[in-house]
């Protein structure tokens, strides 16, 4: 039998699970020979309260050598599931940027969550008088948390989505009882685009026009998107998204938005990026909505509601 493995997803979108599937043909032996999946809501039918749903109130996940959790923690049930996973799994892996840094759902941390959740039930298409459901649904927490804010995490595998090659590397390394090799450099350090020096950029522009490039030439002939004047989070984002040579968004000729999280796990992508811009003489006020530079890493208290009206958006 293979290594017992349990999978769970919390405040998530299934993208991490699809990234696992995107390992491709190597996935078949992994799933059927090397790993012994004991719990994984997306692909198998193990239930929390017994297979007939009549075994009491304690949520039960089987013992496993490896636990993989995607998604951040945003409601009370997520806390219970995560704690059960920690209790039952020897090694706990946080998969994807929601689990490691809060991810997109942690954008809610930048506003008054209680008020926002209430307003979702007051949209123009919603029946008048409706309110936030509160019967038998897990109550929402005050904000979205990364996993390591709630339990000890043994391994962080960021990305939105994570790179299938890294998921395979982590699993293989565990099977071979060695440390996985994961990128530590920045997106910029691994980007093949051409840097010619800063030129005369002193403001950044929104991505409302396409980058300049010759579609018949390789990506190494395209000028760096920051040097073209676009906000590109490459300098402050950890590498790892590249699958065909260039970082994924650069491959599409689109600037990076930082989906793998900060270069240093505890770094602050917004502050680091504002510093990077300032040190290159770029006016930070030209960044529209600077708080969304924390688009993927708003957990750990980094993104908070705006407290006063005088604290203006950049």
């Amino acid at each position, binding site marked *: 039998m293979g290594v017992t493995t349990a999978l769970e997803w919390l405040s998530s979108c299934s993208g991490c699970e699809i990234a696992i599937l995107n390992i491709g*043909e190597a996935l078949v032996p992994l799933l059927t020979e090397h790993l012994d999946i004991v719990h994984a809501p997306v692909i*198998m039918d193990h239930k929390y309260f017994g297979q007939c*749903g009549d075994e009491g109130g304690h949520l039960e996940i089987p013992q496993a050598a490896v636990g993989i959790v995607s998604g951040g923690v945003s409601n009370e049930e997520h806390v219970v599931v995560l704690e059960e996973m920690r209790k039952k799994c020897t090694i706990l892996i946080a998969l994807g940027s929601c689990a490691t840094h809060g991810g997109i759902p942690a954008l809610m941390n930048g506003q008054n*969550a209680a008020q926002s959740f209430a307003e979702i039930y007051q949209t123009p298409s919603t029946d008048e008088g*409706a309110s936030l*459901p509160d*019967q038998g*649904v897990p109550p929402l927490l005050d904000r979205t948390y990364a996993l390591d804010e709630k339990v000890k995490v043994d391994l962080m595998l960021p990305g939105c989505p994570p790179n299938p090659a890294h998921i395979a590397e982590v699993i293989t390394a565990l099977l071979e009882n060695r440390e996985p090799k994961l990128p530590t450099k920045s997106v910029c350090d691994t980007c093949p685009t051409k840097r010619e020096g800063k030129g005369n950029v002193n403001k950044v522009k929104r991505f409302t026009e396409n980058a300049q490039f010759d579609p018949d030439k390789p990506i190494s002939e395209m000028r760096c998107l920051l040097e073209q004047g676009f906000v590109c989070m490459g300098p402050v984002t950890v590498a790892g998204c590249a699958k065909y040579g260039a970082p994924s968004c650069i491959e599409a000729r689109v600037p990076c938005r930082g989906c793998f999280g900060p270069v240093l796990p505890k770094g602050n992508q917004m502050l680091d990026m504002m510093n990077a811009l300032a040190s290159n003489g770029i006016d930070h006020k030209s960044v529209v*909505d600077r708080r969304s530079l924390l688009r993927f890493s708003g957990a750990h208290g980094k993104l908070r509601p705006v407290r006063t009206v005088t604290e203006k958006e950049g």
Partner: protein
Amino acid sequence: MGKVLQIQPVTRIEGHARISVHLDDDGNVENAYMSLMSLRGFEKFIEGRPAEEVPRIVNRICGICPWMHHTAGNKAVDGCFGVTPTPTGQKLRELLQVMAHINDKILHFFFLAAPDFVLGPDSDYSVRNVMGIVKAAPELAARVVKMRQLGQMMIDRFAGKAIHPIAAVAGGFSKPLSEAERRQMLKDSKELLDFSLFALDFAKNNVFNKYLDVIGELGVITTGFLGTVDRDDGSLRMFDGIQRLMKPDGSFTDFEGVNYLDYLGEHVEPWGYGKMPYAKSWDEGFSLDLDAPKGIYRANTLARINVCDKMGTPKAQEALEAFRNVFGRPAQATLLYHYARLIELVYACERTIELLNWDGITDTDVRAKVTPGAGRGVGIVEAPRGTLIHDYSTDANGCIESANLIVGTTHNIGPMNMSVKQAAASLIKDGTYDQGILNKVEMAVRAYDP
């Protein structure tokens, strides 16, 4: 006092849900509910964001169908900024959106739903999954894995990211398609079309014909349907067209997507985070009563197959005719969602080939000039799970002022609740139930691919 069976988590679906079956003192079903357990709040936290950034935020609503949110979001932003995408930019968006349907359908049918049919609904939970299929039918499994991967990678290589895409942009697309890329995609899509015809054939022989009795009973309810059709010939459309709302008797009304608020409402129950859309324009209110439902329509594959007059491509049209000969129009049996899914798989492959053969597809004029500003845009596409509506308003700076989203899956929350209740009530009698019976209740949900 009876008891409550908590089937949690609902498994082999793409989200977080719980089924509660309430039994009375005699062990018969008093009521049953399917509740959505998660809420993230996209409508609110995209407020204030520059609108052109939003299509690369809302794609995170769903990692299985991110291209749907990405393209609907871009259409809505086009509307806010008053920009018309270049013809090639628009066709590239459609190409990627339709290609994304291919993987989705392979994933759902073979990885999530098939274990119930290939291994049997009553087989033990430990083998009733994709790992079990690999063991029971290794050649089939190998081919399925290879084909899903091919479909994912043809998107990934060209557009940079198959999951959480970035390549569609306000005004069109971020890069042109080269002739070499077009040829490779064409070759790959022809292979996928062959596979889709095999899949339909396989399912007819091994699933639909074999389980006709179950199909005729499990989770069967009577509702209306919502989908999108070509505004000229009424054929099924995935990327654009006019919305068609059909009543249970088959009569229908077509409406422009931008007017969706006149036709659709959203009902809220306190026991689940998901809102339940209903047909407000029928003026009968909302009720999940199995014998007399009010305002209830369904979306997703079976709905699209029912509302369309025909399929716009030849092989899919043949398949639709064969389907209608047996099941009529509108077909109501819930498990027929699987059959409709495979007809759509054939269509998506054929449509991909059509788009790749369109004259201007490799043109380099992929993005129109975009000027951020105030406005409103309603972007609609047919997501695998149903009609997807993104409605944004922007301020003078081109940042989101307000947003309203109706996400594909939600159209079916009401109907899923009805199917769960119908299945549970007909399968659980006098306190007798087991894991196989409860799995059948879940099968009534799985058909909707929530």
